[in-house]
């Protein structure tokens, strides 16, 4: 259909004089910035940063920044995918344990068969994408809400993680893979430290920024991005104008699978071994990061940058409590209050922006 666009020249001669397009009042930059979904999260992130900056002197150092950025990146990498998926109108509750599944698959497949680590990395990628595909396929095929489908996948994977690991290794953790061929290069890709002169960052921080950039570009600058917003915003109407909603949704689930795989590889290369029981509960952390970042629970609205800000809020809070020397037992309470505040700031700013039409 797009080919017909080029053939349709505006018929200037026959049309009556039209009101000049340039004469339209443009919204001010301020109003346009306020209309972005991530503004509330940005405000909240600044407030939380200022708060810890004030109460915890150690929080002000560059190594501290490196620490909380690393913590943020381990949340933010998967949260990018989860945010895109939520904009597309679906949930994924299996993303937390899928990270563990990916790490376990990679570790055990290459260790048991004494293969190069990279073989395990590739096998694990296939498995992670398959998990995403199955989630997506079941959701679009059956019409069952993704909340239920991925809740089932969550339990299935959680059981498999423990059961299969116990069956193969006889323990609840994988063997140490650091002695295998290819480990050094895999570690360089997934878990090395990058010295930037003034600050040393974990490589995941850079990968995270790259994923956020790609996610943002896809969402705002490509046809697929348009389709993601439409699939989540109004599925029936998107379908009626020819958007392949089912493919978009399956693709989004697979993107979450890919990012879960990436984080799984980081965990494996960073610690050389993986506990089979970890990852449970992280799916909510990713979803919360996306929501704090402005993604609507009902779909059709949100941003990748927002999910990154949500992850930064999380990372700063977890590490900030430690830097402030408080009892970490209070962490969850503090976190809950922070989240509620972030979401309320978000809502307030959105309403404020909506009034400035």
């Amino acid at each position, binding site marked *: *259909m*797009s080919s*017909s*666009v080029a053939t*349709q020249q*505006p*018929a200037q001669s*026959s*049309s*009556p004089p*039209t*009101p000049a*397009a340039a004469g*339209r*009042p*443009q*919204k001010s930059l301020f109003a346009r910035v306020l209309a972005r979904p991530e503004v509330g999260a940005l405000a909240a992130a600044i407030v939380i940063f200022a708060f810890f900056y004030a109460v915890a002197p150690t929080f002000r150092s560059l190594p501290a920044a490196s620490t909380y950025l690393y913590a943020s990146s381990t949340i933010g990498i998967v949260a990018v995918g989860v945010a895109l998926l939520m904009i597309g109108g679906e949930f994924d509750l299996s993303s937390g344990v899928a990270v563990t599944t990916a790490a376990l698959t990679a570790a055990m497949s290459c260790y048991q068969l004494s293969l190069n680590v990279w073989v395990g990395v590739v096998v694990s990628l296939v498995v992670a994408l398959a998990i995403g595909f199955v989630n997506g396929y079941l959701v679009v095929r059956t019409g069952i809400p993704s909340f239920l489908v991925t809740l089932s996948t969550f339990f299935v994977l959680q059981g498999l993680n423990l059961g299969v690991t116990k069956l193969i290794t006889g323990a609840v953790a994988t063997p140490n893979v650091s002695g295998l061929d290819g480990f050094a290069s895999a570690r360089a890709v997934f878990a090395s430290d990058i010295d930037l002169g003034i600050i040393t960052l974990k490589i995941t921080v850079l990968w995270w920024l790259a994923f956020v950039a790609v996610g943002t570009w*896809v969402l705002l*600058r*490509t*046809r*697929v*991005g*348009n389709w993601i*917003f*439409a699939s989540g*915003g*109004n599925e*029936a*109407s*998107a*379908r*009626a*104008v*020819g*958007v*392949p909603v089912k493919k978009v949704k399956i693709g989004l689930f697979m993107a979450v699978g890919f990012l879960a795989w990436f984080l799984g590889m980081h965990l494996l290369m960073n610690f050389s071994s993986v506990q089979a029981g970890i990852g449970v509960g992280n799916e909510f952390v990713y979803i919360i990061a996306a929501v704090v970042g402005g993604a609507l629970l009902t779909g*059709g*609205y949100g941003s990748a940058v927002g999910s990154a800000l949500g992850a930064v809020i999380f990372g700063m809070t977890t590490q900030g409590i430690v830097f402030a020397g408080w009892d970490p037992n209070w962490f969850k309470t503090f976190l809950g209050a922070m989240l509620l505040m972030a979401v309320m700031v978000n809502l307030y700013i959105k309403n404020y922006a909506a009034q400035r*039409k």
Partner: protein
Amino acid sequence: MTDTIADHAASDLKAGESLVEMEGVGKAYGAIRALEGVNLTVKAGEVTCVLGDNGAGKSTLIKIISGLHPHSEGTLKVDGKERHFSSPREALDTGIATVYQDLAVVGLMEVWRNFFLGSEIRKGRYPLAPLDIKAMRQIADTELQKMGITVKDINQPIGTLSGGQRQCVAIARAVYFGARVLILDEPTAALGVKQSGVVLKYTAAARDAGLGVVFITHNPHHAYMVGDHFIILKLGRRVLDKKRSEVGLEELTAEMAGGQELAELSHELKR
């Protein structure tokens, strides 16, 4: 307005030419027959009105023509060729565009993104090729203005427009992308009098531009203002099929309201 919409309509349309012909079309959902034995012809430059109460089979009829659900009986011909659509994309590719009552647009997306949704302009043909956002904004803006729809800002979410304007943007979009047959599903149902007027004017403009229009409604007054041909459905069957010259508004209203049944009912309830 009429001139400018004609400039953009597909140029190979000849008034009176049959675009869509349905013969004995029916649809069963399991044991339930939602539609049976419906004959309908959509001609270029004419508005065919399909009237009926709730559950009469109007929605099933549009779903068949627009490709959302394939029919299970009879034949559907588009431009003389028999078709069996399995997706809305297939129907769109033969020039059949549908504008739905409540789901014409994606409310949270900008006007220009809605205008080009599903037919985006890209700067290349490879996957993930960037969108030509500047061109799309500009085209959507000038097209809407030319077609007599003024929106304050092409970048505002379309949900901030009025219901009538939203319908008009959806119709303008269909016409711009070369629709030959335009199906309007209850376009005036949720609108006030003034907003309905805007949509009806726009429907007439599409007709005058040579498009075949199927206007689905349960409001005989709106139908009679723009219609050339009227079909009334009741419980999945056709109970009236007349040209404008053969039927008056009163007969249409009476038939719509139940006709015979209503007469019997008023007799029974007589005090």
